[in-house]
């Protein structure tokens, strides 16, 4: 059975890999040092324009040329590449962890490969990532899938139609799922979205638990909306799903999460513009129109919210502060004028050295179980977001 495609890929991976290997072999035959090049996936090679909406790769590449020190890496790259090509050929899929064990199995079966052995999964993961960056393809296109995490979605209006690899179609009316959410997979799916009735907004909540509470208290019953839990840093599945909602439904999307540097930088920024580590896939895995609904610094005063001190004496806190300062100086996303309000929040966090959790809304009126919902709706109505 054919696998679903994550996008229309113009590149033929086996063909590309073969010509790469051919070039390297030729270099060796001519006693020339073969090399491999991959997009440099780091902040210093990230570009951002508000018009595009997500981080894109700059011109820098990581070049690994054959020498006594790099021969191990090159040997490992071609070793894993061969396994991935076989998977593509026979339509087999694996997770990174499984690939790690497959490598170990192959090595165990042939003593000559012993020097290649991977001590832990990080070692094989970095090679797999390098291959993706080198061929400029997604890991899913190398048949390497991650497990599902986050994206549990509730709605009374949303209907999803999924085209299955065998040609069948499945129609999922989210209002008919009872208490169960719809969850996007962390692997390619062909989904078509339709709104039974006009959807006013989509709310992405950082905490899966809080999203569940809002749902349990009737949030989607009272509002024509899509409610989604992100479960921390959004997985590729969640990012792709948000992108799909944005593309197909054109509804305003809001993010509701903690007020701290980590949430702004790692969770919200990744959802909105992708990350430096995944430069080559941000175009399909970011939702540039998502807005930061809160917790906003102004909410703290307005609702008298409980805060925690960020202590420079605490190693974790100190690191977060340093990263925030660094982001203001070097992250093209925060440097862009369009995102100056977000940068302002970061600056405020660095200055005030406090943080405030999304659940603190529940302290405003402990007797009203839907107070949080009311505040969220009020904020949306008043345009109180960034």
């Amino acid at each position, binding site marked *: 059975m054919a696998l679903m495609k994550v996008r229309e890929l113009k590149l033929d991976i086996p063909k590309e890999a073969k010509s790469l290997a051919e070039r390297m072999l030729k270099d060796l035959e001519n006693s020339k040092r073969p090399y491999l090049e991959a997009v440099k996936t780091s902040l210093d090679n990230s570009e951002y324009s508000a018009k595009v909406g997500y981080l894109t790769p700059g011109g820098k590449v990581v070049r690994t040329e054959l020498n006594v020190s790099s021969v191990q890496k*090159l040997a490992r790259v071609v*070793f894993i590449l061969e396994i991935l090509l076989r998977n593509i050929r026979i339509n087999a899929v694996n997770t990174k962890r499984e690939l790690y064990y497959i490598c170990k199995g192959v090595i165990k079966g042939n003593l000559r490969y012993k020097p290649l052995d991977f001590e832990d999964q990080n070692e094989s993961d970095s090679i797999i990532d390098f291959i993706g960056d080198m061929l400029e393809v997604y890991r899913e296109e190398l048949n390497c899938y991650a497990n599902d995490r986050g994206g549990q979605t509730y709605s009374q209006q949303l209907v999803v139609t999924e085209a299955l690899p065998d040609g069948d179609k499945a129609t999922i009316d989210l209002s008919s799922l009872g208490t169960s959410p719809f969850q996007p997979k962390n692997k390619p799916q062909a989904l078509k979205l339709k709104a039974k009735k006009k959807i006013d907004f989509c709310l992405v909540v950082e905490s899966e638990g809080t999203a569940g509470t809002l749902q349990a208290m009737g949030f989607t019953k009272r509002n024509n909306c899509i409610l989604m839990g992100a479960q921390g840093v959004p997985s590729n599945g969640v990012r792709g799903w948000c992108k799909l909602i944005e593309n197909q439904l054109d509804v305003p999307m809001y993010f509701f999460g903690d007020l701290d540097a980590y949430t702004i930088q790692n969770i919200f920024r990744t959802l909105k513009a992708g990350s430096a580590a995944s430069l080559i896939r941000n175009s399909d895995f970011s939702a540039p129109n998502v807005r930061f609904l809160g917790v906003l610094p102004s909410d703290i005063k307005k609702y008298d919210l409980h805060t925690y001190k960020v202590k420079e004496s605490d190693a974790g806190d100190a690191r977060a502060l340093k990263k925030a300062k660094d982001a203001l100086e070097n992250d093209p996303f925060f440097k862009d004028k369009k995102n100056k309000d977000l940068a302002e929040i970061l600056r405020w966090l660095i200055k005030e050295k406090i943080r405030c959790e999304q659940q603190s809304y529940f302290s405003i009126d402990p007797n009203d179980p839907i107070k949080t919902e009311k505040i969220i709706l009020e904020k949306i109505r008043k345009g109180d977001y960034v």
Partner: protein
Amino acid sequence: MKKYQCLVHLKGFFVSNKITKSSTAEYFAKNLQQVGFSSPLKAVLTTLKEAVDNSLDACEQAEILPDLEIQVVKVGTGSSKNTDLIKIVVEDNGPGIEADDLAKVFGEYLASSKFGKGQCSRGQQGIGISAATTWAQMTNAKGVQVTSKTKGMRKAISAQVDVDIKTNTGILRNKENVDWKKNNGVRVEFVMDGRIQLNGDGGLLTYVEGTILVNPHVSIRYKLGDMEWTEVDRVSQTSPEIPGATLPHPHTFKLGEFITHSTLYGKTTLSKFLKTGFSRISDQSISDFVKKGLPKNLLEKSLTALSDEDFKKVFQAVQNTELMAPSTKSVLTVGEDSLSKSISRLGEVDFFSVVTRKPTICDFKPVVVEVALARFVNRGEEGTPVQLLRFANRVPLQFDKSGCAITWAIESVNWKSYGLSQPKDSLPQGPYVFAVSIVSPFIKFKNASKETIDGSEELVEEIRRALMQAGQKLSKHIRQEIKAEDLERKLAHIEQFGPILVEKLVNIVGANESRKKKAEDGLRKILGRDSESAQSELELAQTQLAQQKMREAKKTGSSEDDMVQVIAEENKVSSQSAKIKVKPNAKGADKTSAKSTKKPKK
């Protein structure tokens, strides 16, 4: 054991109208912890140490090359709680002790031939061995069993010596004449409560090995605890010449001592006192003193006519004038050559470096520092602190290392720059032995049990310099090793990963066997070039090490030709190992190493 040659009179202490006479023996019997008997472990070590110190001192005084036999074994259960009954036997081939002196040597406190003499002998005060007798007596109701024979005796004398604590006198019991195969020597046997610990800072083996290291002229046969008998032969055939008690150097004095010293010279003139009462003062020095403010008119005055104020002026002028360093004869050294040979007696040495500093003055005392740093093949491990052996006048110091000047000096050196790992403000780490020896007629100890050297800034700095010199030498060995490892790693990489890279590329491309072979050849050429540069780095490191060895050889007088031979052999081995590793599948690399073996060595 020259202790017996000296007579010491004892006085009781009169405290009040009621006469309470308390003997020195009584005092020490009550305070044995002050002299190294504070625990069962320390009791055994201190007893062994005192017996060995006395034997070695006696042999050296009589210019005899010492043959020692040491046995420390458990023979039963001790009388006190949690102790064993331990037998400690030390037998030497020294001059022996006359029958009349036995009681004094082993049973009387402060009866010493060495007290305050200003010599670099191991023992100084005459407390230790009597304290050991007291401990044996207190815990096992029997003092020490001694057998002694001097050249003049036809038969050896054997007796038990006890300490009469009330009167501080030794008592001889069961005295008898016995046949002994030896011409001369002493055998002491203590049976006492104690416990045996072999390794670690306070271990018996640590003590014996330390003694072996700094006494290259000693042969020792020993059995400690459950160990088998072990024999270690001497590597030096000359008995160290014990420097005589030379005249003191004026810079070792403080004003009060200076004035007291003058009273020994009666009515002598000042200039004569200066020239005959001290070392390193000549006529030239006298005129230098005058230049530095010594009133010229005092020179010919009688000492008795000088006021304290005059003495102060003289003293200041003397202190402000540069004088020759104290005579090198007033301190003795093991020497770099002997130390180098002696190290190998502790086990198979990987490499080592030794430094003997020139004698100098620290804290107004002549002192000489010697350092030996060595890495052994089967000793110590990475990630643990180096084994530190401290010595004062060739006696191992085994307790309270953190308070010792030697430890401070080691910790103050940045060992990382010499290639060793070192946590902040700590001893460096790795499978090394650091031996640091301080020799001086007047070592300032922190306590009576002589466990730690009190450190002034001057002394610590002097030790530090010696350590840094030794560290520099050591780093040449380490660097050479790192480069060799680097080359080996690179060669191994080529050998291991190269073929896999080619094989996998060939698989992906679907290439034929001839392309595979061609690519393999190409790979070898490329990586051979890399190993060539690693090879030349190694060669540079080897050359530097070789040069150092040559310098050392010149210094210690070994034949230069021998050294060249050794170095050439070493280089040959390393080049060959490179060659052997690459040969099976690396033509290019093969050529490289072949070239390197032909390279002329400096």
